[in-house]
């Protein structure tokens, strides 16, 4: 793989990851949000694969495959199941409305880029310069976590944060040790399963996945 193709692929992959993060704030339909998450997982796998191929790093290539399976296929499928059973599968009333969320996302992106500027300028490699994308994806995930009402959007927010961190890790060190990545991925998988169980319970008891209704449980 020649260098310019490598740099372009890497850049595109990172851009796709941030774009998917923005899309999760943009769209209301939970299915669309989960789809964006799946695409983001695939993009993450692509980034890992590119890095692995370029650096002849077998471990990273395996991680890429695992990421693809876990984040691109398994997790989205699991979440889609939850969504399928939810009648009103739309994020109708986020705490911060959609245009304001998008403007906030813009601000967060700027923040990520300027905050990690010192880091990324130092890292003169093509991959090091892309770290801001990971930060941006992470911050947007946090924002989704803080402002979305539906349990599913919350899971997605968490996964965005996770993907962002994973991206930063890939880019910064050109590969986390395989075992760490596996552990992290397993953790996330576990969380998703637990949340799915919780969500199912919530739906049975409350008839919806709106987290605000949990506040009414105290009596």
């Amino acid at each position, binding site marked *: 793989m020649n260098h*310019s193709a490598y740099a*372009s692929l890497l*850049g*595109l992959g*990172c*851009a796709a990851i*941030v*774009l998917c993060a*923005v899309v999760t704030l*943009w769209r209301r339909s939970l299915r669309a949000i989960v789809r964006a998450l799946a695409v983001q997982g695939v993009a993450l796998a692509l980034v890992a694969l590119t890095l692995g191929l370029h650096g002849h790093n077998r471990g990273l290539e395996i991680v890429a495959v695992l990421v693809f399976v876990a984040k691109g296929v398994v997790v989205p499928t699991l979440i889609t199941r939850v969504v399928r059973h939810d009648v009103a599968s739309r994020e109708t009333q986020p705490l911060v409305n*959609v*245009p304001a969320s*998008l*403007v906030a*996302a*813009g601000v967060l*992106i*700027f923040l990520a*880029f300027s905050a990690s500027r010192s880091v*990324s300028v130092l890292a003169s490699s093509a991959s090091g*310069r*892309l770290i*801001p994308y990971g930060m941006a994806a992470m911050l947007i995930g946090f924002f989704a976590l803080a402002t979305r009402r539906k349990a599913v959007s919350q899971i997605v927010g968490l996964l965005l944060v996770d993907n962002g961190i994973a991206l930063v890790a890939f880019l910064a060190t050109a590969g986390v040790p395989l075992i760490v990545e596996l552990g992290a991925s397993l953790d996330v998988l576990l969380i998703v399963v637990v949340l799915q169980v919780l969500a199912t319970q919530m739906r049975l008891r409350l008839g919806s996945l709106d987290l605000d209704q949990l506040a009414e449980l105290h009596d």
Partner: protein
Amino acid sequence: MNTLLHTMGVAGASGLQVVLTGAGGLVLLGLMRKVRARLEGRVGAPILQPLRDVRKLMRKERLRPEFATWIFPLAPVILVATVGVAAVMTPLVTSRPALSSGADLFVVVYLLLLGSTIIALAGLDAGTAFGGMGSSRALTIGALAEPALLVTILALSISAHSSNFPVIIRATIVDPGVIISPARLFALAALLIVIVAECGRLPVDNPATHLELTMIHEAMILEYAGPDLALVTLGEAMRLALLLGVFVNLIVPWGIASSTSIAAIVLGMVVLCAKVATVACALSFAEVFMAKLRLFRLPELLAGAFVLALLGVVSGVVAK
């Protein structure tokens, strides 16, 4: 002698661009309607139908509403004139059209803005409810699209260090890697949304609606008839063609004539038509699957375009 030939070539190419955006824009409308009709299982009107419509309208009687002022007949003229001037200076067929040294993207945008603003003003001229409603909505959308548009221009001009469109095109041809850089892709995505909003295509506005209350653009021009309506239709078609031309030349600038030889210009014309037709078919294809968004959902769409444009800027800065 040589310079004279060159000047004639430049003038000819620019004139060709105007004719192309004019006639081509109308054909483009016909093409988009045809694609839509085919996807809906209809035969649809002939592709040349908009040309026929405009010809017929030119021959019809001119009407002036009772309370309208001179703005009313002037507005369509200014619309066509501004798009025409923009078409002269924008590199569509040739990368060095007339007036191209001043062909700032900012200038092109403001020329188009002048046209749409005066049409909005004319919407208020007759003193009807629909006209006011249309221009109020159109301007609100225009105002919200503006940040996305200017930040997109900013993103596009970072790599070329200039917002001069011919310069950007030439820089792109020299270094085609720019096209698949995230900065350019984000900017193009934002630009596409803005074009859809500015030209009143789905999901922003439904150009085929017959219900006054859901109209945006159509409501503004509800009072126009005959030759004035022909000019409005022509102007809108030209604007669509021009913006799509700008768009395709930013994605695939190849084929654009860099000399003033007739062969190069003819090639440029054919390639441009092919590129624009492809994008128009794709747009029209996508439109079939879309419903019009509610008016107050549009800020979401345009805020999204704005974030994309901002991403374009930061990606451009990072890439340096």
